[in-house]
């Protein structure tokens, strides 16, 4: 499929036409930060965003997702897939979605995630501003982003739109697109290559070296205790992570005491009770009871355990965890540097 071009002057009409055709989600400002939200008008769209508070995973699996609604002995699915366009996803988040697509479909096919994933057309976009904590250029660098339907790049005078699937190509009808020139395609490639040079943080070692060293540090309890000393067990590093996928399921009743809903919530392995399990007869045990053990588990998951399955670390370098950690101890670059030096 060949790349297309749309002028800056025509872009807003393109977004307006898409919004008229169906729900469109994209990055919008929220106070001093950005979030993915349903667009009401093209003016809200902020393709110059650096990073959103939560990754786009939330559109397929919201932080609290009703799975079923029940009434006495009857129940029905609460999942209601919505045909929509998700516009303006940075490539690191595309990689995150590619990972959760796999993790939610291998073995147990998670229809509650996949229902909305499969009805969404994803348009990735170039990174115009790089967040202070991002390190996406130095993690999984050899692994291309995939799973999106088109890629939009801001260049001189307009945007290059590269359709990658039929769904992506179908969006062309909403705007005044013309074939992109070779020079425009070359400029788009240059813009995207340059974004990779703008991260302030980077891993100094290969994913293989990191995996080997982190795994070897498993029994170094002093190291993990030191790294986790200021940990609040608040789980923010998990909650904002595009590759985290654990959840907790709870029932709530409506006030009629007969009907209600079964809801799943994003869970976080850094929180104190995550690994608290029942031993029966009211007894419980927490198999990761200390901050150090929980902290270690996150780094094992992100840089060791899933690498073979994913073909890359379970981290895309978005830097959300680094920024979300109030104690500022979650930054994968700094933590892994410390482990490599141990």
């Amino acid at each position, binding site marked *: 499929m060949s790349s297309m071009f749309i002028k800056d002057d025509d872009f807003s009409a393109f977004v307006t036409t898409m919004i008229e055709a169906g729900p469109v989600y994209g990055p919008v400002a*929220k*106070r*001093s*930060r950005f*979030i993915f939200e349903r667009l009401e008008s093209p003016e809200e769209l902020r393709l110059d965003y650096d990073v959103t*508070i*939560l990754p786009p995973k939330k559109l397929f699996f919201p*932080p*609290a997702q009703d799975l079923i609604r029940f009434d006495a002995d009857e129940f029905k699915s609460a999942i209601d897939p919505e045909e929509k366009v998700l516009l303006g996803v940075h490539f690191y988040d595309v990689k995150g979605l590619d990972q959760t697509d796999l993790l939610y479909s291998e073995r147990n096919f998670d229809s509650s995630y996949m229902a909305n994933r499969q009805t969404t057309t994803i348009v990735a976009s170039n990174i115009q501003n790089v967040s202070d904590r991002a390190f996406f250029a130095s993690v999984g660098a050899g692994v291309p982003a995939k799973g999106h339907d088109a890629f939009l790049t801001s260049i001189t005078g307009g945007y290059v739109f590269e359709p990658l699937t039929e769904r992506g190509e179908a969006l062309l009808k909403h705007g005044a697109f013309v074939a992109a020139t070779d020079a425009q395609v070359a400029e788009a490639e240059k813009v995207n290559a340059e974004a990779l040079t703008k991260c302030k943080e980077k891993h100094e070692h290969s994913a293989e070296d990191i995996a080997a060293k982190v795994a070897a540090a498993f029994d170094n309890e002093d190291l993990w205790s030191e790294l986790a*000393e*200021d*940990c*609040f*067990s*608040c*789980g*923010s590093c998990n*909650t*904002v992570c595009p590759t985290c996928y654990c959840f907790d399921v*709870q*029932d*709530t*009743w409506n*006030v*009629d*005491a007969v009907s*209600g809903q079964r809801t799943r*919530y*994003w869970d*976080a392995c850094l*929180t*104190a*009770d995550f690994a608290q399990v029942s031993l029966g007869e009211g007894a419980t045990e927490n198999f990761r009871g200390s*901050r150090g053990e929980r902290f270690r588990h996150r780094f094992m998951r992100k840089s060791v355990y899933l690498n073979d399955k994913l073909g890359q670390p379970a981290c895309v370098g978005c830097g959300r965890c680094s*920024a*979300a950690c*109030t*104690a500022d101890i979650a930054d994968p670059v700094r933590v892994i540097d410390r482990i490599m030096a141990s």
Partner: protein
Amino acid sequence: MGKPKVAFFDFACCEGCQIEMTNYGAEPFLELLNHVEIVEFREAMTEKTTEPIDIAFIEGSFTRECDRARLEEIRERAAIVIAYGQCATTGGINALKNHQDDYKEYVYGTDSDMPHLDSQKAYGVDAAIKVDYYAYGCPVNKYEVLQIVLHLLHGKEPVIPNYPVCVECKRRETVCRFLEGDHCMGMVARAGCTAPCPAAGIPCEACRGFVDDPNIPALEKVLVEQAGFTPQRAHEKGRMFTANALEATS
């Protein structure tokens, strides 16, 4: 079996948490009455009971030794005791006096010697009697209270969060107070409120108390290094709703 009998009792408190029960709006509150029989609730009815109770909600802190007998009497005839509101769960705001000895003079002035104003340190009611469940908050989250009752009606264990408010802020994409140059205690505060205060731009004051294992040294460090507090202010910051927990950790 008839409807479970529910009663409300109060000790040292403002009774605001009981008032919260009347804030559901008419429909949910009246619908709840299809499932429970309220036998004592002085905010909304004049009747009292000396009969056995299925669920006793106890509001207020235990701060006078003379209240012990009444608490024990309630415990004896209640199948389930729920500490209701922050005063009853941790001592709440009343525990602010626990590190002081001149509070009677500056609160009550020339009346301070009146005998009914005499009190000791303020604790949650579990300092006097066994408590089965805790409904945290100043005031309680009435929707959580409703779920506690509905879970008990179904013979299920109520689910009370032991994770911090940060979880709820992140889930709703609230911009962190610290990222806007402010302070907050959400990192150590027990969630379950759905974090409305930071969402409105107001720091969390931990009105539901701390999580079970709060990292207080890290809290003080962050308040000093990131919010610019003096070490003393950082140390005292956590006291408003959690004086007893703070004392236990320091």
